């Protein structure tokens, strides 16, 4: 008898059908992965199993747990959830109560499931199992790192010794290294406890690495399911095929022309550092934080340099200083012969470099048309005629493969991928020489990442652009970059071409990053 048996489940919000006619059996002890993009309904499915759907949801079909239909009565459902199902959510920061220590929160879970009399012992046991020092029990969520929080979440989920653990994008909020360790943690625990796992993710590799069977969801429907190996080796549904394809990134070929070594340095960063103090006009309070520390680097014209490192290593800060959003506390930059320290970047130089942001959704003012947003940087070129402006905008938006007609629309009318294209278009509208890309694809669905990267490559070739890519995604870097700089705690710790660097990492961080890479699928 299947542990979980979903029969023709349909979930609708008003008119919108989020999950339609989904049927699925999950056997005891198996680790089932559900892959899908945002809005594919995978999370809702999970919530449905735990009976946690929002009131506004209308549900038809049925979900059986251990062969019996989920009870309608809230108390019974609550008991079932508390005793037999453990859940881990995507964003551990918001999923934990900010006003309670994690110890208290785990304790609560134990008491609720009445699994142990000697609560304190159980707490430290759980913490130990998820690899957290018992001392951390007294900490509040905001005092923990993302990884630690997620471990705490897992400990809480385990408190009730559940048969089933539902993990909803447990790692997508974490950076590469922690992501890997958390995944490993989950799989070891499942093995040790012979626990059934439902693992929800958009990252096909994570699923591949962790799950015995997988199901692929799209637009609320289960398009394919089966044993992991088979599905990935020989996908039946086209959509699955796309996903698998998108997850592999071929090293793109660069014309040897751009690869000659005697290329003039476009940007030189000389001993740049950035120190943050706590707020405003009160001198000398709050310990100063060294976000960037004595960074030296050079980027040649036409080159594509990647800056990798774990989150909080200062790579984004450095990028912001380079493009002039922030001011270096010491050191200086020289762009095309002109020295500056960040905020004092003269307009004409600003026009020569631009930044593409990570999150395409927050990078456009919802109340301005695309034309207005794209037009903004044209300020930098001083007075330009209406026609000139028109021309520039059309050129830019067509360059990224969208139609000039779209200029009149508003951001909310575009998909994530399209927005990122638009963001790139805005970056190009002043015909810059250096484009800084901050995690250009990490916020996008897998299936569109490929296209965006291809677009970037094409543009670089066509306009002879110079790229500085900020990322933690080594595959993407490997695919795009000519040269990779590894950054840790504000310093550059290793440098080299992707090939050599990834083949023989020297610095422990680089090693860790490499180790954290998930295997290619199939």
């Amino acid at each position, binding site marked *: 008898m299947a542990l979980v048996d979903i029969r023709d489940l349909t979930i609708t919000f008003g008119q919108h059908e989020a999950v339609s006619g989904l049927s699925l059996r999950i056997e005891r002890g198996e680790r089932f992965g559900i892959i899908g993009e945002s809005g594919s309904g995978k999370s809702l499915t999970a919530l449905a199993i735990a009976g946690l759907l929002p009131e506004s949801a209308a549900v038809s079909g049925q979900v059986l747990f251990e062969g019996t239909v989920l009870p309608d009565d809230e108390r019974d459902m609550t008991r079932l959830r508390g005793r037999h199902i453990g859940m881990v959510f995507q964003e551990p920061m918001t999923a934990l109560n900010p006003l309670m220590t994690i110890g208290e929160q785990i304790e609560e879970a134990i008491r609720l499931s009445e699994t142990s009399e000697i609560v304190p012992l159980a707490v430290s046991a759980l913490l130990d199992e998820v690899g957290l020092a018992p001392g951390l029990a007294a900490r509040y969520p905001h005092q923990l790192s993302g990884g630690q929080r997620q471990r705490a979440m897992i400990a809480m989920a385990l408190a009730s010794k559940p048969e089933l653990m539902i993990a909803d994008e447990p790692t997508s909020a974490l950076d590469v290294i922690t992501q890997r360790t958390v995944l490993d943690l989950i799989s070891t625990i499942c093995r040790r406890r012979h626990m059934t796992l439902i693992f929800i993710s958009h990252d096909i590799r994570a699923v591949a690495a962790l799950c015995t069977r997988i199901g692929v969801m799209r637009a609320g429907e289960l398009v394919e399911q089966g044993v992991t190996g088979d599905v990935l080796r020989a996908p039946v549904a086209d959509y699955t095929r796309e996903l698998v394809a998108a997850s592999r990134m071929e090293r793109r070929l660069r014309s040897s022309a751009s690869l000659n070594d005697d290329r003039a340095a476009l940007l030189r960063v000389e001993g740049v550092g950035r120190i943050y103090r706590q707020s405003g006009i009160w001198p000398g309070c709050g310990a100063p934080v060294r976000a960037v520390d004595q960074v030296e680097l050079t980027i040649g014209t036409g080159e594509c340099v990647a800056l990798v490192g774990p989150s909080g290593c200062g790579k984004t800060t450095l990028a912001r200083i380079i493009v002039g959003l922030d001011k270096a506390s010491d050191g200086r930059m020289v762009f095309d012969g002109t020295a500056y320290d960040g905020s004092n970047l003269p307009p004409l130089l600003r026009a020569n470099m631009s930044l593409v942001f990570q999150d395409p959704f927050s990078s456009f003012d919802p*109340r301005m048309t695309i034309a207005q947003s794209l037009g903004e940087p044209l300020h930098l070129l001083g007075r330009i005629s209406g026609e000139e402006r028109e021309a520039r905008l059309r050129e830019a938006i067509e360059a990224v493969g969208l139609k000039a007609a779209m200029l009149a629309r508003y951001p909310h009318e575009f998909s994530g991928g399209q927005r990122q294209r638009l963001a790139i278009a805005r970056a190009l509208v002043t015909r810059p020489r250096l484009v800084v890309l901050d995690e250009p694809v990490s916020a996008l669905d897998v299936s569109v990442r490929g296209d965006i990267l291809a677009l970037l490559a094409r543009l670089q070739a066509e306009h002879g652009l110079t790229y500085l890519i900020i990322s933690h995604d080594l595959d993407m870097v490997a695919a795009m970059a000519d040269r990779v700089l590894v950054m840790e705690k504000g310093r550059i710790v290793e440098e080299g071409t992707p090939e050599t660097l990834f083949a023989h990492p020297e610095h422990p961080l680089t090693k860790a990053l490499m180790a954290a890479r998930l295997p290619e699928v199939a």
Partner: protein
Amino acid sequence: MMRKLARQHPSLAIGLLAAGIFALLGLVSLWWTPYPIDQIAISRRFLGPGWAHWLGTDHLGRDMLSLVMSGMLTSFVVASLGVLIGVGIGVPLGLAAVAWGGAVEWLVLRFSDLTFAFPAVIVAILIATLAGPGATNATIAIGIFNIPVFARVARGGALAIATQDYVAAARLAGLGRATIAARHLLPNIMSLLIVQGTIQLSLGILAEAGLSYIGLGTQPPATSLGLMLRDAQSLFLIHPSLSLIPGLTIVLVVIALNIAGDGLRDAMDPRLRHQGLSHGAG
């Protein structure tokens, strides 16, 4: 349009409609009232409601309906000017605090603390004693009281907006802080301001009533709902209607405005708008 509104946000529709009607009554009094309110006829005083005077007459024989109408006008004008002052000074301060940060922000915060430290009535008392009591002073007092409110709301909203990438993009595009504040921050906190505006408007009407009641607000021969209450209170046991009519009017106006305010919040706050779906994401 109105019908659509009524379907989606009934409370908002009702609130706006009611508040609108009251405001209209007030406006009309500018050109027409059943009787001139400065015409006193002691012989006609304390008439009960009737055909000649729908709401009766007051202690000076003035027509209550006319008084309520022009009283409504005063109350609305005072309150809305109060809001305007608050918005006009508070919002720029709030935006400046966010756009420039650092010392500017500190100053703005201290300033709003300072203003908060002066309860409206105190301000009113001080002003009234400087310039004599009157609607203008009530307006200023209420306005001053509104400044920090809007400064904080504006700052709060703008802080959230300022973290958005499009603001950074605008800075990359070489726009000045002021331009960014006007171009990106202000439009995106408008809804917040409108909601706060209605709330402050209703508070303003109450405040005006209170001030007039203790003699610091509107002065005869002009009238306001609060002043009517003041005039009528000592007669409450003899002619209750004289204070019940303005009293209930105040209550109704304020309720109408608050309902409208709540409605606006629900209508404008996207988080509440697609509640259901927001769970579905991910």
